[in-house]
């Protein structure tokens, strides 16, 4: 049933940010960011709202241009790799006047576009909703369609801009599992921006904290997958990162973790 394209070459795209800065007028949003993400890694970026984490993601996506420094994807400047990069937004951003299937096909013009789109929909468990209008789907289903729309392009770098922020707690956990499973299957590099530390720890190999336009914490997550939210190691790490985000003294971390 599954077609060849489902098993893409195992090539995530490496990301290198060198002296990356972004200013809007007088305001410096990002300042001299240095970052190396190895191919296939899952990185989560956390931080308070307005810290610049979304801007960082938009720079990676090429939706903003850097004021200084450079984004390199793979071995090339980011512009050359744009077709390998796909982004999921906080809102699903489906075209309301196109059916679910047409939305997934957006921007595909190969002859097997329809078959590929159907496969991608099956991948996210929505094969039977192909001919529905987006307006009749639930919030979680819309985000799954948006995920299928990104996956159908076989991205080597998937950017996730708080895509689960508006979902209810249960749908969120379902979506986290789905994202983790497609990431494990497709081996793309993933960068997730989130304000939810538990989500970051559940999904990422590495959690970055952005504060005042700088990366102030780079924490590896060495927990085995699939990760159980309740495990002591998970709770300890979550508590530590959360305390750091909230700028609390180290002692607080233990209290929060307990």
């Amino acid at each position, binding site marked *: 049933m599954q077609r060849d394209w489902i098993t893409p070459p195992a090539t995530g795209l490496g990301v290198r940010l060198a002296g990356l800065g972004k200013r809007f007028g007088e305001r410096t949003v990002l300042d001299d960011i240095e970052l190396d993400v190895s191919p296939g890694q899952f990185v989560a970026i956390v931080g308070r709202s307005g810290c610049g984490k979304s801007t960082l993601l938009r720079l990676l996506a090429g939706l903003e241009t850097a004021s200084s420094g450079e984004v390199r994807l793979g071995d090339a400047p980011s512009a050359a790799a744009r077709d390998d990069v796909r982004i999921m937004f906080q809102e699903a951003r489906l075209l309301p006047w196109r059916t679910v299937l047409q939305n997934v096909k957006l*921007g595909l013009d190969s002859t097997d576009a329809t078959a590929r789109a159907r496969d991608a929909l099956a991948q996210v468990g929505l094969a039977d909703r192909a001919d529905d*209008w987006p307006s009749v789907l639930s919030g979680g289903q819309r985000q799954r369609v948006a995920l299928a729309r990104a996956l159908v392009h076989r991205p080597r770098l998937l950017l996730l801009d708080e895509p689960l922020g508006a979902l209810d707690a249960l749908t969120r956990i379902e979506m986290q599992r789905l994202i983790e499973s497609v990431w494990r299957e497709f081996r793309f590099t993933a960068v997730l921006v989130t304000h939810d530390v538990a989500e970051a720890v559940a999904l990422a190999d590495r959690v970055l904290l952005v504060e005042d336009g700088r990366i102030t914490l780079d924490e590896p997550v060495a927990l085995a997958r699939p990760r159980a939210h309740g495990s002591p190691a998970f709770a300890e790490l979550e508590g530590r990162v959360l305390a750091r985000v909230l700028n609390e003294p180290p002692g607080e971390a233990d209290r929060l973790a307990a």
Partner: protein
Amino acid sequence: MRANAGRLRGVAPWIVPLLVIAGWEAASRSGWLSTRILPEPVAVAQAFWNLLKSGELVHDVAISTGRAVAGLAIGGGLGLLLGLLTGTFKTAETLLDTTLQMVRNVPPLALIPLVILWFGIDESAKLFLVAIGVFFPIYLNTTHGIKSVDAGLIEMARSYGLEGWPLYREVILPGALPSILVGLRFSLGLMWVLLIVAETISAQSGIGYMTMNAREFLQTDVVLVGVLLYALLGKLADLVARGLERRFLRWNPAYLGVSA
């Protein structure tokens, strides 16, 4: 019970018009209402039938409809084109919008003396009046529609590699369409109003000519046939606009499951 309620709902809207017609007929027959003011409904129906039989009616309706459609095509087409232009390109907006907004504030009917001086009283005068009237609703709503397309959707489509015409076709035009159709509906209403005025001022054919001619000979029944025809054609234009909305806005929750 439920079937009865359904039938009642089907019949109910027609009760008031039927009562009005019955009352009108009674008032005419009793002589309380003079035929010079309002002929009885039967006489109007008779006049309608006679005009239909002689072919006069079909001829005049065809002429008027032709004028209306031609005026709409010219004015609406230009409105759509300029609306797309100013909605899409900032330069076009800077250059054109202020001028057009000024012209918009002139009621088309105030131009009648000028129109007669420019075009005389032949076909082009009527087309001009209709065209200039329908231009603005479509122009304004097209511009507005394009500008109000969700910027998030455009950004998403760009990040999926859509540029130029594909971006326009997939995102901008469909996004602007609800607004454009609202403009079209306004225009269809204005179209008949302007045509009626143009035809009553000067015409050798058409529904307006028919009614003005009948007025000269005190044929109130024919005048009434003309009035009813305008009402019918106006309703028909509205149905066409609604049909277009239902066809092109199927995706919109506001139109989902609406029966025809």
